[in-house]
């Protein structure tokens, strides 16, 4: 309608032509702005989160705004002539060091105390901010974004305050050391940017369907900045989030993701010239035999996914229906306290989860002095770090600690995902997978190093002491498998993983693992974590992945049923304002069909409750002569009646082209229409007369009934 108006106007002169051009490119400008905003937010959050999480351990006294890595960035200064390998960074002061002076036991206890206190402070601040300013900022946001993109409107979910509080809350929650990530919420943050910027362009701001195109692009930008994976973001939007994804949206998403990644790259939040923390720098070959452990990792990932989804949903359901749900802030504090208390003693849980993943996926180089890299290497050999070696004692103790960390992470994440602060689960599930992967990698490496002459492994070694197995690669594959098991993504997951790590060499291992993980996961239970949460909350979401295979027709599903009162309709030229208002008061429908007259029931159009309410209230306030018994006209011409009260013309709020079907349309087609067009309701006609209405909730109820579930239990209020 608007578009037609503009096209018509374009003929009329130069200025109008410019206006038309502005309208045409506004989509691109809008996604450009969204990309810039999403990139900026991500840069700020990345810098803030790393700084705050290091604040738990200590502070850079000379320049408090640096995190630990940045503080020690310059390294030991040039005139330090000592060649000792154990030179510590002098600018960074841990809390224990600062207060107790030097004694080891005292500084450990003080460090522990400060760690727990900072964690509690951050956790409480996050929970309080969410509660006071923007309750919608809690959780991951991806299930809700999926629901919104499928056509449901949640008012205020993508507002300014949600954006602000979600950004701040994410930083605080990650810094509190909780087992959660900031990658999922980035999608929500980017969508908030998309929603806010779409109001600058009337073409998008006033049309929910057009706005969804922008939101699709924004969610691509969200993943793009979260993982530094622009193409992965576009595919994520296509595979996981979006409902309806035409090529036009694909290109805009691509552009939006590109811009966001570019902005983030120029902010350079990690100071390593990469978009993300964990980029790898090796490209050693992998061998065919290694596919067996990779597939095994995939299967484990699928199992973990199922296990995680099952228990997380159980816990969330318990929270929803029991008294626990009445103490959200207390719950956050309790989880934070337990997490901080248990994670400090183990170095692998004490460190930030992203850093842990980085450590696990990277290869041991000469600069690494960590336990995990204690191999008995032959330092006289050239390229000694390229080849595998026999593990030292420290690696064994590291394996024990990793095993403990694995159990801890697996259990605590179940209780963490779903508490009332911003929380995503990409990073925790990747961490679980990476730990399993690294452990398996080390095991496999040692197996080969100890049997280099075996027939099975002979092609993996150039010489008895030159075998190449990279445990970091296993960690990467494990991370992909676990994430795939939880979210059930495949294509986008693999692309995200290789963009994330830069390991182009390793696409096939990751594909194998992701596919296995999806198969195993789907065999155990069909839905991914986001679908499970959508079902738990009962959002009106029509899953577009499943097929509808029943033979019912529209007449079986439509309302009103045989014994129901007749459909609430509005006639086009006989209802008064008062009658309409009482209709609005007595019913709860979101929209009303408009018919020619009650007797004929010929359909004219559809009017939304919100528009009707606003229009009547506006007319009462502003235009003269509109009183309770003025007649409302939805027709083009209004008969002149000098005696009666002034008429109220509402033609412009009437949707003259509602989607209609006939009563004999098979439900398969109807469901397909709801999915493809993102409809919220469709009108059912018979011989051109209005017969009834089918809403999305009717369809969902019908599907639930056909699957022998209780339809009322799963539905959104």
């Amino acid at each position, binding site marked *: 309608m608007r578009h037609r108006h503009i096209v018509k106007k374009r003929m009329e002169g130069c200025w109008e032509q410019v206006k038309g051009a502005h309208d045409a490119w506004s989509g691109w400008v809008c996604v450009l702005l969204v990309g810039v*905003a999403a990139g*900026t*937010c991500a840069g*700020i959050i990345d*810098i*803030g989160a790393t700084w705050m999480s290091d604040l738990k351990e200590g502070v850079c006294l000379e*320049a408090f705004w*640096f995190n630990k890595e940045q503080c020690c*960035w*310059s*390294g*030991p*200064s*040039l005139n330090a002539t000592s*060649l*000792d*390998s*154990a*030179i510590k960074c002098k*600018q960074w002061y841990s809390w224990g060091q600062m207060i107790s002076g030097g004694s080891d036991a005292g500084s450990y206890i003080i460090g522990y105390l400060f760690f727990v206190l900072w964690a509690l402070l951050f956790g409480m*601040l996050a929970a*309080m*901010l969410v*509660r*006071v*300013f923007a*309750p*919608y900022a*809690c*959780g991951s946001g991806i299930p*809700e974004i999926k629901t919104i993109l499928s056509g449901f409107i949640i*008012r*205020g979910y993508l*507002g*300014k*305050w949600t*954006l*602000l*509080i979600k950004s*701040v809350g994410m*930083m605080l929650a990650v810094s509190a050391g909780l087992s959660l990530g900031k990658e999922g919420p980035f999608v929500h943050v980017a969508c908030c*940017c998309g929603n*806010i910027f779409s*109001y*600058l362009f009337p073409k998008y701001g006033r049309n929910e369907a057009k706005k969804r195109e922008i939101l699709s692009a924004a969610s691509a930008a969200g993943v793009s900045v979260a993982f530094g994976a622009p193409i992965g973001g576009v595919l994520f939007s296509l595979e996981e989030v979006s409902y309806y994804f035409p090529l036009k949206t694909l290109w805009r998403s691509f552009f939006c993701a590109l811009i966001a990644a570019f902005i983030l790259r120029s902010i*350079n939040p990690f*100071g390593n010239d990469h978009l993300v923390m964990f980029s790898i720098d090796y490209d050693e070959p992998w061998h065919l035999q290694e596919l067996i452990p990779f597939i095994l990792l995939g299967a484990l990932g699928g199992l973990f996914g199922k296990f995680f989804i099952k228990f997380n949903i159980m816990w*969330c359901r318990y*929270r*929803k229906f029991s008294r626990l*749900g*009445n103490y*959200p802030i207390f719950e956050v504090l309790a989880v934070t306290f337990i997490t901080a208390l248990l994670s400090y003693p183990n170095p692998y849980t004490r460190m930030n989860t992203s850093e842990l993943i980085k450590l696990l996926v990277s290869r041991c180089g*000469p*600069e690494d002095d960590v336990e995990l890299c204690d191999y008995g290497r032959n*330092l006289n050999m050239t390229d000694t770090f390229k080849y595998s070696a026999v593990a030292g004692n420290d690696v064994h103790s590291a394996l024990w600690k990793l095993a403990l960390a694995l159990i801890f992470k697996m259990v605590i994440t179940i209780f963490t995902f*779903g508490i*009332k602060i911003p929380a995503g689960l990409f990073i925790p599930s990747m961490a679980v997978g990476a730990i399993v992967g690294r452990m398996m990698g080390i095991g496999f490496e040692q197996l080969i190093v100890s049997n280099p002459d075996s027939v099975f492994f002979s092609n993996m070694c150039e010489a008895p002491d030159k075998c190449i197995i990279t445990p970091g690669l296993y960690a990467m594959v494990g991370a992909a498998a676990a994430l795939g098991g939880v979210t059930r993504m495949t294509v986008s997951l693999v692309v995200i993983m290789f963009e994330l790590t830069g390991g182009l060499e390793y696409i096939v291992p990751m594909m194998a693992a992701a596919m296995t993980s999806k198969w195993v996961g789907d065999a155990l239970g069909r839905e991914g974590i986001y679908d499970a949460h959508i079902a738990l*909350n009962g959002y009106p979401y029509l899953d577009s992945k499943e097929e509808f295979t029943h033979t019912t027709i529209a007449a079986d599903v439509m309302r009103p049923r045989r014994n129901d009162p007749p459909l609430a309709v509005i006639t086009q030229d006989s209802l008064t304002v008062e009658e309409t208002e009482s209709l609005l008061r007595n019913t709860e429908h979101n929209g009303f069909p408009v018919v020619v007259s009650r007797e004929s029931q010929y359909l004219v159009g559809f009017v939304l409750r919100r528009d009707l309410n606003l229009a009547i209230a506006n007319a009462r306030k502003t235009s003269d002569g509109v009183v309770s018994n003025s007649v409302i006209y939805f027709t083009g011409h209004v008969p002149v009646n000098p005696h009666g009260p002034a008429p109220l013309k509402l033609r412009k709020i009437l949707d003259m082209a509602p989607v209609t079907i006939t009563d004999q349309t098979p439900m398969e087609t109807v469901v397909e229409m709801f999915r493809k067009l993102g409809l919220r309701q469709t009108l059912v006609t018979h011989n051109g007369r209005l017969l009834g209405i089918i809403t999305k909730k009717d369809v969902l109820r019908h599907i639930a009934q056909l699957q022998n579930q209780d339809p009322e239990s799963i539905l959104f*209020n």
Partner: protein
Amino acid sequence: MVHRSSFVPATAALIALVYLLSLSAVCEAASFEDTRCKCVCDKTWDASGKETRAVFTNTTRSEQCDCEHVVKPLAPFLSCSRCLCRTETRNTTTIKVVVIFIICVVSLLFVYMLFLLCLDPLIQRRPTSYQQHTNEEVNLSRGVPEEDMSSGPRTEDAAATTPTGAGPSPQAMSARQRSLLNMVSKEQKKWKGTVQEQRKNIYDRHSMLN
């Protein structure tokens, strides 16, 4: 970007702070450079049989970034063929500005939260009756598109002006100020209604985001 536009007072405070800090940073900037040359060498043993360190960094920009200039002066016995040197850059100013900005935002939010939780109920004696949830989109579509974008700072201002505005005689205020104040408090009330509705959905009815 979005943050910045929604916090005018924060930005002002931020600029002042950054200025002060940049003054103080001049004297100690030496140890926190923007570029470094990092060389990683294979470990080996020095004359006394101790393992050498593997990482050598140099932040003085005048020299070239290679093993000859960075490693050799310190460890002449190391073979340069086993070293890998790389220039890395970061932007300390960005980090400083962003971190200070975050501190400002968090403390502003914290103060405003304290105000809403403690002082606000005292000032408004009568219990606020929350009107039925009005959505922000409605307002926008009726023709105040850009203005609504900045309702963040305005509600923020309300927090600062309401307590002081109640003190002096109302006649002193010009009509313009009063209407502005009215508008601000109306905005704030509307926003509170929205938040209340969200809170009801999430914390009481548990119908969303479980």
